[in-house]
């Protein structure tokens, strides 16, 4: 492949990463890193660095719209970002030290996990709406994490309360670690955690996760940048592709049902995860 062909293919992939990413509340990195390493033969650490840049672009592009439309829980995001940024810096430092084969194996496993969660998670906005009468956790009260959001689908305002802030904080730290280590946004960890564990409605969880992903990726992106691992041409194409994709993706989320896209995306991810694992085995001389 000529350099120009590589760049055009990458822009196309980034377009789909931005489209799917903004739609599903993930950064799109779970898709970009395997694509760059397997199809475009980019070195995995450079692929991770480039993917992080794409994750920031997805997050900023999509989050801006969700914040404007009052889908995002800004307080919850701020609280969990304390955990994700610490995780991300740790992850990036680990990634710089470990051999590439470790990153391939971890990535393969994480992507397969992501595919599995994506099939399992359902739209649960209505089931997860406000339940009064129970005592709220003291931390939730102190941080006033409970919130409301407006659902365009049925033109209604949903009030919800947040459960298990401590567990959510821990999961977010892990999501941040994977973000810095593997160049992903970590939305596939945070969205189900917020939805199932903390009982945040799906759309608010997607919007809040998207919002946090940008800051999380920025924390590790600069570490990769300062190590000279960011290829500016690749990164530029990713930003431009993602920018176009998110513009379309955010328009889709406000109305549509994500179930079908989610299923296609999950199958796609499973294939990529297996391919990454095969590549890792090839590296260590087993295949």
């Amino acid at each position, binding site marked *: 492949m000529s350099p120009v062909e590589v760049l055009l293919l990458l822009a196309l992939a980034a377009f789909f990463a931005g489209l799917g990413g903004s739609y599903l509340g993930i950064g799109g990195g779970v898709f970009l890193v395997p694509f760059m390493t397997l199809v475009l033969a980019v070195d995995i650490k450079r692929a991770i660095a480039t993917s992080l840049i794409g994750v920031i672009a997805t997050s900023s592009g999509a989050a801006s719209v969700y914040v404007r439309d009052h889908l995002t829980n800004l307080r919850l995001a701020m609280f969990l970002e304390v955990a994700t940024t610490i995780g991300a810096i740790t992850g990036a430092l680990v990634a710089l030290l470990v051999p590439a084969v470790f990153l391939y194996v971890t990535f393969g496993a994480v992507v397969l996990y992501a595919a599995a969660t994506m099939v399992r998670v359902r739209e649960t906005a209505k089931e997860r709406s406000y339940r009064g009468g129970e005592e709220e956790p003291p931390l939730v009260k102190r941080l006033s994490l409970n919130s409301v959001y407006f659902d365009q689908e049925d033109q209604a305002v949903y009030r919800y309360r947040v459960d298990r802030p401590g567990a959510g904080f821990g999961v977010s730290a892990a999501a941040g670690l994977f973000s810095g280590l593997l160049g992903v946004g970590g939305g596939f960890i945070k969205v189900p955690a917020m939805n199932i564990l903390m009982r945040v409605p799906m759309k608010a969880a997607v919007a809040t996760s998207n919002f946090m992903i940008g800051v999380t990726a920025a924390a590790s992106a600069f570490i990769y940048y300062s190590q000279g691992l960011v290829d500016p041409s690749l990164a530029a194409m990713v*930003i431009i592709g993602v920018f176009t994709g998110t513009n379309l993706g955010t328009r889709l989320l406000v109305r549509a049902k994500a179930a079908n896209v989610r299923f296609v995306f999950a199958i796609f991810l499973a294939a990529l995860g297996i391919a990454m694992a095969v590549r890792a085995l090839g590296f260590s001389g087993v295949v």
Partner: protein
Amino acid sequence: MIAARAGIRLVQDRIAALRRAVVGEVEDTNRLIYHVLRGGVLVSVAVLLFGFILVGAKSAALPDHSVPPRSLIPQLVQFTPAGFLSLGVLVLIATPMVRVLLSLLSFAEDGDRTYVLMTGIVLVNLLISVFLLA
């Protein structure tokens, strides 16, 4: 004379109205964050496109190494493609950081100490990442 004064008065009123509109918008944190995130991405994309135009105009090779922050300005002065592509990437990385800073100011304005502390920790984390290996 009176007409001139009335004219000045009209301009002053107009400026005051504009200022109120801007301040009114800024008071809504959500709107402000929207504009910062969106604006950051737009500026980044514009700078990157300019970088690619430079690649074409100078028929230079596509740069595959980013410019370290401290040698960015000389590269920009010389209009190198690597300089502008790196600047575009750095603008994008800085966008969420600026957003956190604005959140901090907005929580401070509300006198919300808990959230000032929390946002402060996030900001310190981001600064650590910037200065850790630089």
